[in-house]
């Protein structure tokens, strides 16, 4: 039997330390960037304090997810860690064992199969793509996808290296830390299952955003040709989004919530306008959550879902589209109908 899957619960961990955009701009020895907050729509971001790292963010998000779930940790069949950064004990990058193995041990999901994936900012949605495959084939019933992104150290590197507003490290200033987790479960209700489509890697653009570990200092660095990657993502994604909508017999008007990858407010709005020109219609609402968290890499979609669930913005049966753009260039679309998860979050007050 071909099973369907749905999102059962979502958990998030936001670190406590707050850095405003004006504080960040104040760190530059010579002011070279103007109106950064206005252009990106980011007024602050949360960053890890000493003692916090990718591992602690991921573990706390997983625990938070379990607290909203009907499943106990020992009922999870699979755990997939999807983060780009794998920092444990500060800025020590862990290669082996896999991050997910240590998360499994920490949360007590000892019977779960574990492995890590890495697919830049598309990590968690790639996790959904893989979880759906394992659930559809009947191999597992429940799968937790989890990610802890400790990427604010890229910002520290950028501050020391940016000298003009044309620097390739400008995008690093949008980054904030976050952990997110979601449990994907098997469902027999085909109406509410996830529709996954259009996961495509357009490797021609793979050099437009690169991130790697520093050789001579802790942490990493990221270089982005922001304008080019934005243009490529928007123009190349149109046929992919169209195909995804056709696959589930929906038009853009039927999508109540579009959650794009959270990079900057101006690029999200420019993308939305391009879609309006191409499709001649627009989704109900485009979700932008980066004002007080910044771009949190692979966790952005689930952070946005978690926030809107807590704010009780979703209604059951709303169509939601998650749209990811990530360096590679990866374009992915996930469409689903909101289920009874909407009643388990937020307060009625």
């Amino acid at each position, binding site marked *: 039997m071909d099973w369907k899957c749905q999102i059962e619960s979502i958990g998030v961990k936001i670190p406590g330390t707050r850095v405003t955009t004006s504080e960040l701009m104040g760190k530059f020895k010579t002011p070279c960037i103007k109106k950064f907050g206005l252009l990106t729509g980011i007024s602050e971001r949360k960053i890890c304090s000493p003692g916090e790292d990718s591992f602690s963010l991921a573990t706390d998000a997983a625990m938070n997810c379990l607290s909203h779930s009907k499943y106990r940790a020992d009922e999870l069949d699979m755990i997939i860690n999807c983060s780009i950064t794998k920092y*444990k004990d500060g800025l020590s990058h862990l290669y082996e064992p896999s991050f997910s193995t240590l998360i499994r041990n920490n949360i007590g999901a000892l019977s779960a199969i574990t492995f890590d994936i890495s697919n830049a900012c598309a990590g968690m949605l790639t996790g959904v793509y893989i979880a759906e495959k394992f659930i559809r084939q009947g191999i597992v019933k429940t799968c937790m996808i989890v990610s802890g992104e400790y990427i604010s150290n890229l910002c520290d590197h950028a501050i020391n290296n940016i000298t003009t507003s044309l620097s390739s490290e400008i995008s690093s200033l949008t980054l904030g830390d976050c952990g997110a987790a979601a449990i994907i479960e098997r469902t027999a209700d085909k109406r509410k299952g996830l529709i996954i489509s259009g996961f495509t890697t357009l490797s021609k653009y793979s050099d437009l955003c690169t991130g790697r570990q520093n050789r001579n200092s802790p942490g990493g660095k990221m270089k982005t040709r922001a304008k080019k990657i934005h243009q490529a993502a928007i123009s190349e994604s149109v046929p*992919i989004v169209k195909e995804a909508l056709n696959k589930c017999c929906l038009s853009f008007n039927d999508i109540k919530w579009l959650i794009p990858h959270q990079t900057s407010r101006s690029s999200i709005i420019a993308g939305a306008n391009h879609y309006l020109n191409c499709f001649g219609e627009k989704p109900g609402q485009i979700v932008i959550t980066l004002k007080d968290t910044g771009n949190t890499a692979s966790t952005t979609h689930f952070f946005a879902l978690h926030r809107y669930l807590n704010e009780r913005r979703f209604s059951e049966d709303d169509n939601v589209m998650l749209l990811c753009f990530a360096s590679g260039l990866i374009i992915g679309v996930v469409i689903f109908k909101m289920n009874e998860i909407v009643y388990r979050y937020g307060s009625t007050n």
Partner: protein
Amino acid sequence: MGAQIKMVSVAQPRLGFHHVNSIRLSARAAGQCLDDASIDPCDIGLLINTGIYRYRNTGEPAIAALIQETIGVNRTTAKDTDNHKNTFSFDLNNCGCGLLTAIEIVEGSVRSGEIDYGMVVTGDAEPFYRLSNEFTFNPAAAAIILAGSGNSNGFSMFRTYSYPEYSEELVSSTFYSNEGWRGKGRNMLNVMQKASYPDVCVDCAVKSLFKFLDESGKTLDDIDLIIPSQSPLGFTDKLKKRVGMNGNLIEIKKTGNMVFHTAGPAFALKKVWDDNRFRNSKNVIFLTIGAGINVSLALYQN
């Protein structure tokens, strides 16, 4: 319809090259695999990279995307052609078991008819030249292409068994050291392996193997070949002594203390692929082991 191995290729650095770019090495294995299989690169629907130790510890994009770009697999959406196919690629890390986990994902996609061909690539090399302690993994890469078999031949069963009590037997991570050249600090890779690790691996592998045989309804006598992981050092020797099988448990010749890591099972497969023993074996077991400790097994039937 099952999914079978269409081709396997391996790559090692050319003589005299000490520091190797793991991405180039993996792309070389992948390109060779496509050539040997005579497959159009654009027919690859899914590409997964399972190497752990990557060139300069690249975090993004995924190494799989860089390999895809190097070998020219559907680099962009071709809006003008009707039969254009999309390729999706990503990295997967499951330590020594990564190759088999990726094969399981690709196998599912091929079996369901979602894609015609899928490729798993793996490659390890020291991330930064001479910035590591106890790094005993041979620079090596391998690629495997899977295709539909049209019948029940191919992979028929996958299982993973976990032993979380041994998760600290092998830990490898970077740490920042202030003792660099000219007072500059540097990020060092440190591989810490307990002396008991090979023995623990053999215990876990043997336990898992017999559990797997029970679940598949087979006995050891039914198995013609075992293709195991080649690390840690001494693992295959000790496994051979415990399981028997002698020549039918495939071992790769070692060079000093260096072992083949994630590409190890593919090197072993290549050995029996070239001498036709793989095609002539009815039941083959792939047995991979990695830090965690996780043991992944798969049954392959010809």
